[in-house]
């Protein structure tokens, strides 16, 4: 009997996973790529090949431009703040021997709760007349604000909710990263003269968190670009498209207006954008990261 080659056996073992990967990830992506070249409408029996027309139309599309700008602003706010806050929380929790489990659970809670359910809570908290937020503002002598109803503040408000949602997730990743730093390094640093909190952070903690930092930054960026539920649940992109974000636009184009070809083109742009951003981030940060 002929012995099968190592590569052949390897492929055989990888086959189930490869099958799943093709069926659920690569296949659908290719399907979307093909659909983006058509004028298909959901339910329509005819499909016309339109080439790159769907893509050519995008730069002139006001909704797309607004959604892109809003998404960039949202991600630009949520990513750095939620990463910095996550790191700060992790450092505080790690530094205190008291209530570690409680704080860890408390700050992680937003990650495990359903966004749509929490949207109801936020809507109440931020209600223009009944919400505790405004009651507090009024009690402190400030004018009440319509956080979610005002086109000028809605995106910042959603970003704040996004930070609340994501900081706990980043915190848990940072906590794991902090645990991996050997204690003896801090002791060596203390003997060598770096014993203030600030010196310890810049000499040991921050550089050795490099790989974690890179991972968290990439994940946080991707997560913030994928903002959807809170918009769909609370603002529906309003008022006056001030909270229109890319995923919500794609959803509306595809499932409210049934313009699948257009939605598919948007999806491809969204995907490529994420890919480029993540690659850029890994290149930029990766050069400064030390891997032990």
């Amino acid at each position, binding site marked *: 009997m002929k012995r099968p080659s190592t590569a052949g056996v390897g492929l055989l073992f990888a086959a189930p996973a490869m099958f799943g990967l093709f069926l659920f990830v690569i296949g659908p992506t290719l399907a979307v790529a093909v659909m983006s070249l058509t004028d298909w409408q959901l339910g329509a029996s005819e499909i016309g090949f339109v080439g790159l027309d769907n893509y050519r139309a995008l730069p002139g599309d006001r909704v797309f431009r607004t959604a892109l700008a809003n998404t960039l602003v949202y991600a630009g706010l949520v990513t750095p703040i939620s990463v910095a806050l996550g790191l700060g929380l992790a450092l505080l929790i790690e530094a205190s021997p008291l209530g570690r489990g409680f704080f860890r659970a408390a700050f992680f809670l937003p990650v495990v709760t359903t966004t749509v359910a929490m949207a109801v809570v936020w809507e109440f908290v931020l209600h223009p007349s009944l919400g505790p937020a405004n009651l507090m503002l009024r009690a402190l002598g400030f004018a009440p604000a319509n956080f979610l109803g005002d086109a000028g503040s809605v995106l910042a408000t959603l970003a704040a909710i996004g930070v609340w949602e994501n900081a706990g997730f980043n915190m848990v990743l940072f906590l794991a990263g902090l645990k991996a730093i050997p204690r003896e390094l801090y002791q060596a640093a*203390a003997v060598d003269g770096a*014993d203030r909190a600030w010196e310890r952070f810049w000499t040991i903690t921050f550089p*050795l968190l490099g790989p974690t930092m890179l991972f968290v930054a990439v994940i946080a960026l991707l997560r913030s670009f994928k903002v959807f539920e809170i918009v769909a649940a609370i603002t529906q992109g309003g008022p006056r498209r001030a909270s229109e974000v890319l995923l919500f636009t794609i959803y509306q184009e595809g499932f409210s207006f049934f313009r699948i070809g257009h939605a598919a083109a948007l999806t491809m742009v969204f995907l490529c954008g994420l890919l480029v951003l993540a690659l850029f981030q890994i290149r930029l940060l990766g050069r400064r990261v030390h891997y032990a």
Partner: protein
Amino acid sequence: MTLGIDGIAKSFGATPVLHDVTLQLGDGEFLAVVGPSGCGKSTLLRIVAGLEPADRGTVRIDGVPVDHLPPKARDVAMVFQSYALYPHMSVAQNIALPLAMRDLGRVQRLPGWSWISPRTRARRHAIVGQVREAAAMLELEPLLDRRPGQLSGGQRQRVALARALVRRPRLFLLDEPLSNLDAALRAQTRNEIALLQRRLGVTTVYVTHDQVEAMTMASRIAVMFAGRVEQVGTPADIYERPASVAVAEFIGTPRINLLTARVEGDRLFVAGRPRPIAAAGIAAADLLLGVRPEALLLADPADTRALPARVSHVEYLGSEGLVHLHTDAAPAGAVARVEAARAAVLRPDQAIGLHFAPTGMHLFGAGGRRIAARFPATGDGVLAAVS
């Protein structure tokens, strides 16, 4: 620079790790603290460094109590068992860190500050010079740009030493610095550290579980068991006059032989065979006679004054031989160190007699404490080779 450790006690929770430890080091002295793992020696070192607070007692450097001072204010340097090199920094940056922390202010340490401030530039320049000097001392110059991850164990160990000595601290603290090296490198580094310490003349506390390191490097040794200092003395003191059975067993390879014995008047009985002893006021209770392997002398089995024994196993080491023996007086067995030529002719199960050389004999009483005794020569001397 002198170090005084006075009545230090420490517990972790309900577990006491140090009981009233007192040690004195003179200027430039090299003290090895040796003991089995878990005896509290590393904790003692960390208390001296200021990494761990003591529950009671005082640490004095040059007579001044330093208990309230953080590590950096004590001006001590420490080499950790894991070396604790900063993995993200080059060798040069690792060695320079203690200098940068001491000689540069917070603002001056900012990257690029030397471009603005000539004074910072001058200080940085001086630091580079000192780093080079320390690197040269440990032959690290070709490695200055490498990261710790790219170095071998021995090289990392030398970087840790360079980082410790670069700022000329008042006190060197070394915590098992050789335990991660292989045997050949350990022997070589042992000598290098001892020479370096003598050259720099820095007072040094060296913690190790390896009695060979302690014996070969230190000018004095403190032997610790279960959080207490059992004996302090020169290597010769400790070997020739062990204060207890524990010390006698811990120091010396192969281990000292322990034989059950009893004393009646001026005679010491081992397995019923008497020999003269000069010791005051010993009860006839069960005693232990410790005999160093080199003091166990092989004799003719027909010699009625000799202790009867049987060879169980012979280790031929080239320069010498170790003869493992069964004898009724030593339940755990006994080992004799003999000339290689004599070991070569011994066979397992061969019957043999044993005499003791007076210089390698130690008597221990109740609780394992040493009993002062002299063992007058019996005239047996070193016996003729066994045929």
